[in-house]
């Protein structure tokens, strides 16, 4: 099956190849660049599923050499956590590391 401008690249946020192409022509060079404008990678999987496809588009459509590809930025939490657990006080508090 051929890809087209309507092919969905980011399933979580329903971002198409056409939307990503528009951002590439404006000079996007990283996953995060594309994420900002299109929301690809902002959904619940945080880019796990679409990173490969977006990286492919960066290299082919964006002309970024493989050696200059930077990985998507990763932030906590590693997996979704409910707010009641995150906000809990002792004794139910998660054993999160001490400040900082």
């Amino acid at each position, binding site marked *: 099956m051929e890809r087209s401008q309507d092919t969905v690249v980011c399933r979580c946020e329903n971002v198409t190849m056409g939307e990503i192409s528009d951002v590439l022509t*404006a000079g996007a060079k990283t996953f995060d660049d594309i994420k900002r404008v299109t929301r690809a990678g902002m959904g619940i999987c945080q880019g796990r599923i679409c990173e490969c496809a977006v990286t492919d588009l960066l290299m082919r459509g964006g002309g970024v050499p493989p050696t200059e590809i930077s990985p998507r930025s990763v932030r906590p939490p590693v997996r979704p956590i409910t*707010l009641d657990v995150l906000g809990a006080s002792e004794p139910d508090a998660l054993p999160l590391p001490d400040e900082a």
Partner: protein
Amino acid sequence: MLDTSDVAVIGAGARGSAIAYYLAREGVNVALVDRGFLATGTTGATMGLINVSGKPPAEYTALSLASARLYPDLAEALGVDLEFESGQSILEVILDPADLPAAHEYAKRQSRVPGVDVRVLDTYEARQMAPELSPDIIGAVYCPQDGHLNPFRLAWGFITAARRLGARFYPHTRVTGIRTTQSRVTAVVTTAGEISTRTVVNAAGVEVPSIGEMVGLSIPVVASRGQIVTTEALPPLFPGPIDSMRQTRTGSVLIGTTEEFVGYDTGVTTRALRQNVRRAVRIMPRLRTARAIRCWAGLRPWPVDGLPIMGGVSGLDGYVIATGHSGITLSAITGQLIADAILRRPTVALESFMLDRFSEGRFHFPVEGFRAFRRRYGSTILARAVSPAGGDA
């Protein structure tokens, strides 16, 4: 030689992209440069609030109102959906009855600004507006002039429109110097070559000071870190932003209310995360079962007196500054005023926001937050600001 332009704008955030647009719209030849892409700095880490009510003193509130009024027509002019909404914003939720008198006082004072209407809703009115609010809240500070939009769409909209009007955008291009000859700007030096220009706009956010140092200017802007946590997409729970929270068009709820002076550190902390989350679930208990999917931190450019810095500088022709926090609120009016200033149209509005106020002593520290600021920076920044290295040109 990378380019030749009438104006080179440094920084493709909310302000820089707006300035590029408003200039291009007037037929000015513009080049926009950013070391990242667009909205890579503060604009890409912010909540997206258009905050009129929370902006004392009166002058600052009036400026914010003037800007807020521009967004409805702007979306149409740009041809991009900014996801702009207004009229349903709660600035702050009151949780302690002891805070009510101060809230009423604040509302009264802010409402003296023409066109601004700030009220304290009681718990019944607040929950009529937002049924998901906790029954334990005492009241809510409400201002119909406040609103919100999508910061990425804002920057993207400005830049796309500016490019359509002939502006050039150079992302991933770092400014390394600014050339001047006989007190006049002549070029911007970048990693991709020089841009020959007679006017440079320093809209570099937290990097405003380093771009200032390139011409020997000491611009007193420090970084104030804000941390945000976002949830997964949720059903509509918010009629508009409430307190420290904003629900985006796609349903995710952004939560953030912290301010720390920690230099340029964009790390996240569990302390701030817990602080943000606890206030959120206290205000809206339904959020207890919502799942957080990401935290991040952004740095607000914080001029030491809390007010924007806009306009030219004495002693150097062609150097314009456009910075401050609240870029989302102020981007539209900043774009307009800076464009007017560059085109030499009279802009009385800019006078009290110019850089010279620091060296001329026409400023004061806001009481709030000053102690935290002072603890971190002592008086070094201020001392340098009032006596710039090398003296006034």
